[in-house]
């Protein structure tokens, strides 16, 4: 029996291999984004190939783009923008959405009603459309892009967190905390958050994918990251002329976007599960 109690104290986790594949691809891109300036084979802006839309070769591993620049270097640097901007935006959106959602569930009453209607109104504008309008109106510096993407995805995060928190809020332990005289911030962060953190993380993953896709879409339309910088969406846009030639310059950035979004999806569908075998 002594071994069994020791086991049940340290909960073990089960992590499926599909999730591990997802995680390793994400880690790979995160590492690439972090180390980008040190691992690029050629400077990003330099024209190296005399041919444009050059094929894959020993010198240029992923071929060259429409100006004859090294595609591999541009993908590596593009990872910084795609991953960085999306991550910053999703953190902002999910943090503010979750905090507001939980607070609305706990406080209730007019606070909940006013906030919910306000964010519903924001949510009713199609995300691509509002993205286009804001980018066209204010211009698109990196800061504006991050804030814009965060604002677009906050209402969804708010709705999700609120609906989870409303369920937890009716539990008796919340009533116990209230009758103890606890404040709102304690109830939100100590009593509710630990119980909904799992679904919130899954939501974080989905929203990250949405943001990567929206950002790539905006860049493709020329309203996202502006030259001389280029994220993956912008790379697809720049090299769209290579499509008839089957140039790697247009296929590789598309594959990069797909690999990142699919692997995030794989990971959040297969997050490690805690094994609750009490007698083991």
């Amino acid at each position, binding site marked *: 029996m002594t071994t069994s109690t020791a086991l049940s104290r340290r909960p073990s986790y089960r992590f499926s291999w599909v999730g591990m594949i997802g995680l390793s691809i994400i880690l790979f891109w995160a590492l690439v984004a972090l180390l980008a300036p040190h691992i690029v084979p050629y400077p990003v802006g330099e024209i190296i190939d005399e041919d444009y839309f050059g094929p894959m070769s020993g010198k240029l591993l992923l071929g060259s783009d429409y100006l004859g620049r090294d595609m591999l270097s541009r993908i590596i640097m593009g990872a910084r923008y795609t991953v960085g901007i999306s991550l910053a935006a999703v953190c902002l959106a999910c943090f503010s959405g979750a905090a507001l959602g939980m607070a609305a569930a706990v406080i209730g009453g007019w606070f909940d009603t006013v906030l919910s209607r306000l964010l519903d109104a924001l949510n009713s504008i199609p995300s691509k459309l509002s993205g286009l309008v804001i980018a066209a109106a204010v211009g698109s510096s990196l800061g504006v892009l991050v804030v814009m993407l965060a604002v677009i995805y906050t209402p969804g995060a708010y709705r999700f967190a609120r609906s989870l928190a409303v369920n937890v809020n009716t539990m*008796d332990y919340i*009533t116990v905390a209230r009758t103890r005289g606890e404040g709102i911030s304690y109830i939100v962060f100590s009593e509710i958050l630990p*119980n909904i953190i799992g679904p919130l993380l899954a939501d974080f993953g989905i929203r990250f994918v949405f943001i990567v896709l929206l950002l790539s879409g905006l860049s493709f339309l020329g309203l996202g990251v502006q030259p001389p910088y280029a994220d993956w969406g912008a790379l697809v846009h720049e090299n769209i002329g290579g499509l008839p030639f089957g140039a790697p310059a247009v296929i590789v950035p598309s594959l990069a976007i797909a690999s990142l979004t699919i692997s995030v999806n794989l990971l959040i569908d297969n997050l490690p*599960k805690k094994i*609750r075998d009490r*007698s083991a």
Partner: protein
Amino acid sequence: MENLVEIRNLKVEATTDAGRRLEIIKGIDLDIAPGEIVALIGESGSGKTTIALTIMGYARPGCRISGGSITVAGKNMVALGERQRAQVRGLEVSYVPQSAAAAFNPSKRIIDQVVEVTRIHRLMPLAQAREKAISLFRALSLPDPEGIGYRYPHQVSGGQLQRLAAAMALIADPKLVIFDEPTTALDVTTQIEVLRAFKAVMKKSGSAGVYVSHDLAVVAQIADRIVVLRGGEVQEVGNTADILSNARHPYTRELLSAFEPKARGASVVAVAESRPLLQVSGLIAGYGPTQADGLPLVRAVQEASLSLERGRNLGIIGESGCGKSTLARSIAGILPASAGKLTLDGRELARSARQRSREQLRELQIVFQHADTSLNPAKSIEEILGRPLKFYHGMKGKARDARIDELLDMVRLPKSLRSRTPAELSGGQKQRVNFARALAAEPKLIVCDEITSALDTVVAAAVIDLLKEMQRELALSYIFISHDLSVVEAICDEIVVMYNGRKVEEITPARSKVPQHPYSQLLFSSVPKLDPGWLDSLERDPELVKTYVHG
């Protein structure tokens, strides 16, 4: 005579989420003769429902029948294919679930669901099936047997729905009916009607029955034979009278002793002061929008007044919906009262908990029925008990750790549970932690809302003993809310009987322990007794039943 059911060396396995196999039924032998009613009794987790379900060849998801044989009317249910099992189900063996409310489809008329079995097995034309259903409704003494089937499930009461579920099970004249705790969710006053109907209809149809229950007194009324189970093994089998009068197995005796009336110890803490600890006068509370007179639309509690002296206990009993929990919630300030005055220890209490001072909140603690939902599953026991210590007493570090150990010791839990989460504790352990959290505040009064209802008889008795002990040591007072009279009698000095939101009677030992009000008399007389002849000999005034029982 050949047995209808023969179970030989039955084994059921469950697979845990770590992929490990666990034997939950460890080789059971059981025979049921035609027309015999056998009761399976035991605490939760003893495997009684699992065994009952295997008779239909069914194992719940994650479980599987791993060995042995179950022969029902000559067919081995273990060896049959799923299609052949479906032929047996409903026709030869049928099932009455614990919660009929969850078993009926809310969007279909009752009669269409009752006759469904005859349609699936193509037994008889629809008109004939309906006629048969109506005659069953009559046999189960349901009101308006011709019309009741044409209602929807939400239009009949819980007790009626339970009888309608029995009609559904009996429509194809099965050889065996499995009753899975069919009266557990009902009030005692309703339970009697349902039990009587079951007993009469089973006698008339001559079907055999398996009655699963944790309540020995209920089983005593209906079963011919009792099988006592624990941990997936048979502890004792015997005729009902034998088991009740001379049980041999210690576990059976333990179950029986939980029924013995326990005298409330006269060791009441000396009451020096005459000032009551808690005084409630003219309290009105309810739900819904506020009306012109400033009172809510639905008044769950109407002008309740009570007073409780220090070191004494007050019991509040009544059936579900009588307003007892609402009363507890308004005393605790969770549901602010619309009218009335609350005084705790001479100082007036605000109606809403938000307006009460931290000191007042500390002095009055509430413990809820479901320990599962009142302990945060994401926190360790240490964190759960540590929070009130820090919040009310500003305890930190070593002092707090020592106090947590002390509290665990007080409620008889080992210190090794500190780092566990609530999901890793048993029901009884959770309820002890729940209670320890209230003790951590060092209150003067603890409101206990049905705290033993979700526990097994033996575990509940241990929790009650703990409560008494705490009272002796810490000079606490309790308000004890329950629908279970025996629990309330075991711990309370005074008993308040509530009916329909009103206090109908206050029973104090000083006056007499005998209830005067007709509803109290009905309630007290409805509590099942261990005597197997109790149900048949019980006579109730039909007028009284008509007035107060809506089951």
